[in-house]
């Protein structure tokens, strides 16, 4: 299945892109998908433990299971306001 990934702020700068698509087996956990993204963009490695992940605009836990066509966002430490 395909999952659409969006990267923001420092994650986007390090990856060199604001979006990508990964093809993964159904019911892949978010933590595993994040590892796949880091394999594709190794400069994200040092941020692995410092980003949150959102799926379809909601924060999720690392064991959240992804579904086909989900939008997964890599959320570095926020700094609004």
């Amino acid at each position, binding site marked *: 299945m395909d999952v659409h990934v*969006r990267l*923001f*702020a*420092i994650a986007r*700068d390090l990856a060199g892109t604001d979006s990508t698509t990964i093809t993964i087996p159904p019911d892949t956990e978010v933590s595993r998908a994040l590892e796949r993204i880091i394999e594709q963009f190794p400069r994200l490695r*040092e*941020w692995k*433990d*410092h980003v949150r992940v*959102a799926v379809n*605009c*909601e*924060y999720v836990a690392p064991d959240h299971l992804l579904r086909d066509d989900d939008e997964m*966002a890599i*959320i*570095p*430490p*926020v*700094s*609004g*306001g």
Partner: protein
Amino acid sequence: MIQIVTVAIDPGEVIRSVRETAAGAIAVFIGTTRDHSHGRRVVRLEYEAYEPMALRVMGDLAEAMKKKWEIEDVSIVHRVGNVNVGEVSVVIAVSAAHRREAFEACRHAIDELKESVPIWKKEYFEDGEEWVKARPRSE
């Protein structure tokens, strides 16, 4: 009123949006770009948002506030893009029957916004630029 805008925010408009005849108080927080950060002179800030999620989280925050405090209304407006020194980046207005709830809820709103809304700011200094919280902290 829960909005993300790319133009200058009019705090008066945000205040007017929460006015209720049942309210005896309106508390307002206005965030502005400061000219210094950790000893360096800031020239401007640039904000970026994951917009659909930011709007959702801001909306959820407003709803949670209404459940937690006896307040009449909440408006949150955040600007994205370039925000120069002295300009307004965010306005939060809360109306309530009484000032205690208005103040408490308003303070909570900005504290919570800064923790959870997917918006990021980049500081532009005279000699460089850096995302705020850009150095990963060791656990």
